């Protein structure tokens, strides 16, 4: 608790753990704010994009990542899907008293490495320590800013009937990995989180399919939630094909035994996008050539069916509605 009260102990914590990990010119001035030259920003485009997210995942570490990697990738992705080039992040942490400094150091290093690989700098931040029990080990908030280049206008309301719907790979891995990492299910599975920064994949997609209408990362609530949101915003119907939705074989088994629907499981490295039909093949090829898009697939299309309604053609040949999920999915009983 001595750390939260300002003063030398706090300064030491920040220096020791965070500044040394994040290590960049903007941060090392240790002013209360990071400062940017507007003219530098304007080199990248004509609009500023800003987003924020808080990360409270437990457990802190899981197969494929940790809360730090998640906090960096998630915010980068929220910028990227708007067509923004992600540039800078802030990092505010709330630490429960008693959390081992080594854990904190490990997570800070993970954030730093993830940011470095993504070409993004963490330039300002805050640390607070709270009483035991006042938060669950560690909460992280990251706010990101990026710049959108001129002429690029992606939006959930821009999709038209006939547009192809694509995803960049195997769905549901993150949700399954987290569920399993919580230890309640006692299942042995190699499924890992797909946590990844997607801005370079998005650049590839936009270069190949400049008419792309809409991109969104399929995080909490899974792909089904994104599709419902865009169907509603654009007032189109969406038809997807179950036999074209890419799923890891182990994921199919995991979901079958538990009675979970993979369409609703969270992803942290997957986007859904809508592109004009005549650009669909180019988009698919470009994504498949990117390391984060090898299993990309065209899963369906927007239709002039009932607006706001997402329908799935099942492997079996019937049709069912894919609605918004109410609350969390729970495993089957019998």
């Amino acid at each position: 608790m001595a750390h939260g009260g300002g003063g030398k102990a706090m300064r030491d914590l920040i220096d020791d753990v965070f500044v040394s990990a994040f290590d960049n010119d903007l941060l090392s001035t240790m002013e209360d704010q990071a400062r940017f030259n507007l003219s530098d920003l304007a080199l990248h485009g004509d609009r500023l994009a800003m987003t924020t997210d808080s990360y409270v995942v437990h457990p802190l570490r899981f197969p494929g990542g940790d809360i730090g990697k998640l906090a960096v990738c998630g915010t980068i992705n929220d910028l990227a899907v708007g067509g923004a080039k992600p540039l800078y992040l802030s990092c505010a942490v709330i630490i429960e008293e008693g959390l081992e400094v080594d854990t904190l150091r490990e997570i800070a290093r993970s954030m730093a490495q993830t940011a470095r690989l993504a070409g993004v700098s963490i330039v300002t931040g805050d640390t607070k320590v709270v009483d035991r029990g006042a938060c669950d080990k560690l909460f992280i908030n990251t706010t990101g800013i990026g710049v959108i280049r001129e002429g690029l206008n992606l939006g959930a309301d821009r999709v038209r009937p006939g547009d192809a719907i694509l995803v960049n790979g195997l769905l549901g891995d993150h949700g399954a990995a987290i569920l399993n990492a919580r230890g309640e299910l006692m299942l042995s599975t190699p499924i890992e989180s797909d946590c990844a920064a997607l801005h370079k994949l998005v650049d590839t997609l936009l270069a190949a399919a400049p008419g792309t209408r809409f991109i969104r990362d399929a995080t909490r609530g899974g792909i089904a939630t994104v599709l419902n949101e865009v169907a509603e915003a654009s007032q189109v119907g969406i038809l997807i094909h179950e036999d074209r939705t890419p799923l890891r074989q182990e994921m199919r088994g995991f979901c079958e035994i538990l009675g979970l629907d993979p369409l609703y499981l969270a992803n942290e490295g997957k986007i859904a996008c809508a592109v004009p039909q005549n650009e669909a093949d180019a988009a698919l090829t470009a994504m498949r050539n990117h390391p984060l898009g090898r299993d990309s697939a065209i899963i369906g299309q927007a239709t002039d069916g009932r607006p706001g309604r997402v329908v799935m053609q099942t492997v079996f040949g019937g049709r069912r509605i894919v609605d918004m999920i109410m609350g969390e999915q729970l495993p089957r009983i019998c």
Partner: protein
Amino acid sequence: MQYVDEFRDPEKAKSLLQEITELSARLRKGKRRPLQIMEVCGGHTHAIFRYGIETMLPDDIELVHGPGCPVCVLPMGRVDDCVQLAEIPGVIFTTFGDAMRVPGSKKSLLQAKSEGADVRMVYSPLDALRIAQQNLDKEVVFFALGFETTMPSTAMTVLRAEAEGVINFSLFCNHITIIPTVKAILDSPELEIDGFLGPGHVSMVIGNEPYEFIAHKYGKPIVVAGFEPLDVLHALWMVLKQLDEGRSEVENQYARAVPGMGNCAALEAIGKVFELREFFEWRGLGSIDHSGVRMRKPYEAYDAEKKFAIRSVKIADPKSCQCGEVLKGVIKPWECKVFGTACTPETALGALMVSSEGACAAYYLFGDVEKIHSRRAEAEGAKAMAVAEAGL
């Protein structure tokens, strides 16, 4: 995936559907209503909707959704009892997932959890026993529910608790048995069921013999069915073949999982730990004789109803609820006055809307709600017109 993909083959489905269409057309000739086949088990209801099977069947067949969902038939009073147990200081209340959302008269277990009660989801009763062993200063109660499908694992857990000398563990027993349920359906004057799809996983435990009375005393075909979409279609086809050939027999479509004689070890464990209650209260169906089980005397130490002073108040369903009629298949979920309006998965009045096997939840999640509302408006319009014409 083995045992999954083969049973979802759309090509095989096509040929089955063709035969089903021909058979049902022939059987329906001259009858004023379509053939009514009831799937007893909520798992089948879910499968039917999940794969869009209803959208593939001809109009000559109507699927009637039965009461085989153990969460759906929980009376509100029992949910209140769970909440009461969960709110006792020092108690860890463990339960299967779905049951957490069922509304009690004041709140659900999920709401009790958000207010500070220690309610934990488990996948198996053995997990609950483990929690008891890891928390010796607490009392762990397991909410034991389900038909015969889940009874063996509960029974085995009690036997293990006894063998390992665990004393801070008990169960709140709400296990129910399927046969009295089906008999209540058969005796119901409001229903005219032509044939049944039998519950596949219950049958894994009890075998096929208990259903003989359905075929011989009531003269109805019953086919025990698996849960993949081809299983459901295949079993439907088998029911129609029986009707076409004038037979009424118990057949086993799910032979790859259901042994004809049931599972001896499971039945032995059940028989050791449980005995039938004289009667048990079912939501919407009232009291049914010999339909519930309780712990036998030697295992009373593991009976939460003996360990704790449970209020056990009988709570009437809300007036607007038509859960009972839906459970019996007398009305379709969308024919309930409050379906999709006052009663939705987020604001559920009854368990059928929150259980993953509930007919209402299946219709709401997978079915076409707007179409349902317009069908209902049409039906009401037609009724109003008929009344007006009768008055003229």
